[in-house]
C-alpha cells in the first residue's frame, strides 16, 4: 500500500500541530512492512531558497520519499489555488506516485481543489482528510470565537458569520461554505483528533458516516517518562507554544499581573516559544510591554522568564524546570499535541474549559480547567495550583499514558484499508 501524506508544512521548517502529526504518521507508516509512505509538505515564500526556478514540487533535502510543494497563490478567503502550473504539477505528481491512499492534513496551503483533482486523477484512491482545526467552518482563522464579543461559537451560518465580519455580506459565507463542501465531498473519510470537534462538523453538514475519531499519537521525546524530581513546592509554571494571539500567552501574563496586584508572587512562570512577530499589533505590544516591565524589575522580583523558542527533541530540559504546564489558548483547541507531551513528562496541565483542551485534560484528575478566556479564573487556578498542599501529587498520579504513535498509525491503517 502506498500512502501519500499531504502535510501543511515540514516539521523541520515550521511548527504546528498539522505538520507534527503528519510527520509522526509518516514515520510510523514507514516503520510498517508493506506500507510505502510518501510525504508532500507545503512550504511558503518565507523560505525562498527552496523555490527552484520553474519547479513546483521538488524533493526535500535529499531525503527519500519526502517532497515539498512550493506553495503560492492560495487565496486566504476561498482557500483555492490560483496557480495553474502548481495545480498541473500536483496532477502530474499524483500520476507519477500513484498512491493508493491520499491522506491530507489540511487544505489551506495546498488549495481545496486539489482534493477534487485527486479524485479525478485517481478515481479509485482512498482520500482521507484529517480536520486539525475549524478553518473549514470558521472564516475567522478557524478560531470559532465570535469577533464582536469574544464568546465561543458553536455553529456557523451566513448571518452569524456576517455578524463577525460586518463588511462581508451573508451570501458570501453561504458561498464559502458551499465551495468548501463541494471540494470536501471528494473525501472518503474525515478524521478528527478530538471527539469534541464532531458536533461542530456534524452541525456544519459533514455526513456522520464519514466522520471518525483518531487520536493524535506521538513518539515520546527524549527524556519523557522519567519521574519529576521531588519538590516541596509545586509553584513553577511553564508555557510551551507559539506566542500568537490564539495561544493566549497574553492572557497568562494578565493572570500574572492580577496575582501580583493581589500581592501573591510566590511562583514562577517560564515562557518557551516564539513567533511573537505573528501576533496582532495589540497583543504583541502588550506582551512586549510586559517583558520590558519584567526586565526592569530587580532580579529577585521577577516572576516571568522568557526563554525563546524550544525544540521538541530538547524539551526535557525546560520541562524539568516546571511543575505545571499551562495551555491558556483563547480558541477551541482541537487536539493540541503539547498536552499529551506534558503528560509524557508527568506534568499536570492547566487549560481552558472548552474544546479539545477540555477533552484531553480531565479536571481534578490530571489537571485543572479554568473559565475560557478569563484571566481572573486563570489567576485563581494558578494560585490554587501553587499553594494547595497535595494537589500536584494527586493530579500527577492521575495522569494516564497518552495515545501512542503506534495506536494512531493503527487507527489510520484501519481506515486506509476499509474502503
Amino acid at each position, binding site marked *: 500500500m502506498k500512502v501519500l501524506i499531504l502535510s501543511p508544512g515540514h516539521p523541520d521548517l515550521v511548527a504546528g500541530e498539522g505538520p507534527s502529526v503528519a510527520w509522526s504518521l509518516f514515520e510510523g507508516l514507514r516503520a510498517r512492512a508493506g506500507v510505502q509512505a510518501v510525504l508532500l509538505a507545503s512550504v511558503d515564500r518565507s523560505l525562498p531558497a527552496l523555490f527552484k526556478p520553474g519547479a513546483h514540487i521538488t524533493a526535500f533535502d535529499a531525503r527519500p520519499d519526502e517532497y515539498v510543494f512550493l506553495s503560492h497563490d492560495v487565496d486566504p478567503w476561498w482557500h*483555492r489555488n490560483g*496557480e*495553474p502550473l502548481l*495545480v498541473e504539477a500536483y496532477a502530474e505528481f499524483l500520476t507519477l506516485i500513484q498512491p493508493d491512499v491520499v491522506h491530507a492534513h489540511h487544505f489551506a496551503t495546498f488549495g481545496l481543489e486539489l482534493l477534487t483533482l485527486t479524485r*479525478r486523477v485517481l478515481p479509485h484512491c482512498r482520500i482521507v482528510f484529517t480536520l486539525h482545526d475549524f478553518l473549514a467552518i470558521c472564516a475567522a482563522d478557524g478560531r470559532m470565537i465570535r469577533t464582536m464579543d469574544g464568546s465561543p461559537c458553536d455553529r456557523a451560518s*451566513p448571518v452569524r458569520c456576517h455578524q463577525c465580519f460586518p463588511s462581508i*455580506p*451573508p451570501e458570501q459565507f453561504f458561498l464559502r461554505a458551499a465551495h468548501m463542501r*463541494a*471540494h470536501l465531498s471528494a473525501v472518503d473519510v474525515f478524521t478528527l483528533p478530538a471527539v469534541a470537534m464532531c458536533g461542530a462538523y456534524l452541525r456544519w453538514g459533514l455526513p456522520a458516516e464519514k466522520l471518525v475519531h483518531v487520536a493524535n499519537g506521538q513518539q515520546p521525546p527524549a527524556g519523557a517518562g522519567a519521574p519529576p524530581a521531588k519538590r516541596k513546592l509545586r509553584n513553577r509554571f511553564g508555557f510551551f507554544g507559539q506566542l500568537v494571539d490564539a495561544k493566549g500567552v497574553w492572557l497568562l501574563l494578565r493572570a500574572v499581573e492580577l496575582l501580583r496586584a493581589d500581592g501573591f508572587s510566590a511562583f514562577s512562570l517560564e515562557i518557551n516559544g516564539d513567533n511573537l512577530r505573528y501576533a496582532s499589533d495589540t497583543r504583541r505590544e502588550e506582551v512586549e510591554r510586559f517583558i520590558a516591565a519584567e526586565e526592569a524589575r530587580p532580579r529577585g522580583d521577577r516572576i516571568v522568564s522568557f526563554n525563546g523558542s524550544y525544540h521538541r527533541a530538547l524539551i526535557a530540559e525546560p520541562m524539568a524546570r516546571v511543575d505545571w504546564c499551562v495551555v491558556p489558548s483563547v480558541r477551541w483547541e482541537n487536539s493540541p499535541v503539547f498536552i499529551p507531551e506534558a503528560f509524557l513528562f508527568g506534568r499536570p496541565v492547566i487549560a481552558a474549559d472548552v474544546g479539545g483542551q477540555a477533552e484531553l485534560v480531565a479536571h481534578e484528575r490530571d489537571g485543572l480547567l479554568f473559565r475560557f478566556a478569563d484571566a481572573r479564573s486563570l489567576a485563581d487556578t494558578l494560585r490554587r495550583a501553587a499553594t494547595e498542599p497535595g494537589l500536584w501529587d494527586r493530579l500527577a498520579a492521575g495522569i494516564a499514558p497518552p495515545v501512542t504513535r503506534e495506536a494512531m498509525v493503527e487507527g489510520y491503517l484501519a481506515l486506509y484499508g476499509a474502503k
Partner: protein
Amino acid sequence: MSDAEPAAPPDFDETMYLQLNPDVAEAVAAGGLVSGRAHYLRYGAREGRRYLPTPGEVREPGVIAVITTRADGSRAPPPPAYWVEAVRMSPGGGVFVTGWIDDATDKLAEAWLSGEDWEVELMTTAFARTRRRDVEQTLGATGAHPYGFWSFVDLGRAMRRHAACRLVLTQASGAGVTLEIGVRSLADSDLRDAVLAWLIECDWSVSAHIGAVAGLTDGAGAQIVAHNRRITAGIVAQPQVERFGPAQGRPKASIIVCLYGRPDYLFLQNALFAGGAGMQDYEFIYVCNSPEFADRLARDMRIGSLVHGIRQTLVLLPANAGFGAANNVGARYANSDRIVACNPDVFPYHADWARRHTEAVETLPAERTALFGVPLYYETGALMHGGMFFQIDTVHLSRPGGLFTQDLVRVQHYGKGAPPDTAAFLRPRPVAAVTGAFISCRRDWFERLGGFSEDYVFGHYEDADLCLRSLGAGMAPWLHDIRLYHLEGAGSTRGRAQEGALLVNRWLFASRWAASIRAGLHGIEPTHALLAEPETAPARAARRKRR
C-alpha cells in the same frame, strides 16, 4: 477581493477641476503639483472636491453674437439670461449639452448646435428640461418653470475632435444668442456613462423615474440607445476566445454566463456545478465584460477544467457590452442545441440539477421547453422567483406644454420571499416571463427570436423582452421546478452609470411593451391565451364527471 488601482472618473476634466479648485490651480502653476488629475487621485477624491461644475455654477461661455434683429428686420428684444455648462463630444458622434435659459415667459424655440461640418437642431432631436434651483434663486423665481436643459444626440458618424462648437439659442420672440463653447472630448463609452450618471444627478423635481422617463421620451432615450448600440457593436466585434477542457462529443446544453465586476464566480460555479450528475454533458461559456479580469479568468478556467474535467469556453470582450450582447456572443460559440443563460451568482439547489434539466428537456412537450425558467431561491432558503408578471403604473408630470403621461412597467417576481415549498409558485406552468438569471432556450428558437435585445444599456429587461417576443411569436415561456439558488445582486457591481442605465431601460421597455402588456399580459393573472394553464388530470376527470 483585490483593490483596483485608483482611476479618475471618466468625465474628469482637468481644466474644470483647476477652475473649481483655485488652490490646486495655484499649486500646479507653481510647480508644486504635477497636475490637477494627480491631485484629485491623491487627495481631491477623498476630500470630496468637485471636478465638474454643479448645475448652479456659472462658467463663462464665449458669446460671439447677439441677435439684434429678426428675420423680418424688426428689432429683437435683448437676450435672456442663459448659460451652458458643458458640451461634451465623443469620437463616435455623441454630443452632450447641459445648460439653462430663462424662457419662462419667452419660450425657447430653437437650439442649433453646430461644428465644423455638421449641425443639429436639438429641440426636435432630443431636448429635455430639468429643475434648476440655483437659477430659480438667482432669478427670484418659483419652482414652476424648469430652467435647466440638457440634450444628448448621437450624430451617427465618426467625428473629428473639436476644440469648440457653436450653439444658437433662439426664443419665440426672436431674442437669441450665439455661443462659442469649448468642447470636452470623451471616449464614446465615457460619454455614455456621463449621460447616464447625469440622469441620476439631475434635479427632476419629481421622482427620477418619472422625470428621466419624460426627458428620455423627448428624444434623448432613442439617442442614448443608438449611441450604446454603436459602442456595443464595436465591442462584440472583437472577442478573444479560448477553449479549455475535453472537446469530444456534442454537449446537451451550453450554459452561458456573462461576467462583470467580479471574477470569483467562475471558479465558484465550476466547483458547485461540476460535481453534479449530468453535468458531464454540459459546457460552460463565460463571456467576460470586465477585460481587467481577462488573465485571472483564463487561469481560473484552466484550473477549473483540469480539476473538474469540464468543457469551457472563455470569450473575452474588450469592454462591457452589456448582458444581452454578451449572451448573444456566447451563444455564437455554443456547441449544443440548447442555450442556457445563467447569471454568475446562480448555483445548484440540488446536486443533480443538470440531470433534472436534461430530463425535462428530453421528456416534456416541446412547446413547454422552447423557453423556460426555474424557481430561484435566496441563500436564506426563501423563494425569490417563481416566474414574472407585469404591472403598469401610469405616471403624470406637469411641464411646459402640457401634462406628460406615460405608462411604466414594473416587472414583478411571483413568490418573492415566499416559503420554499409554496406549490402555487412552483407548479409547472406558462408565465408571462422568467428572469434572465436563468433562461433555458432551444437554440433554434433563441436564434429565431434574434437572441436577447442589445438595445438595453448594460442589462435589465432583456429577459422580459425576450419572453414577450417569444409570446408574440407563439411560444409561451414556462416555469419548471428545477430549483437553483440565486444570490441576487451579489454577482456584479453597480455604479451611477448603471443606475442611470436602469432609467433608460425602464423607459425603453415601457415604450416598447406597455401597449402589448395592457392587452392581456397585465397583472398577476394575465389573460393572454397562451398563458392559460393546461388542464390537470384531476380537473379534467372532475369536468367529465360533471357531464
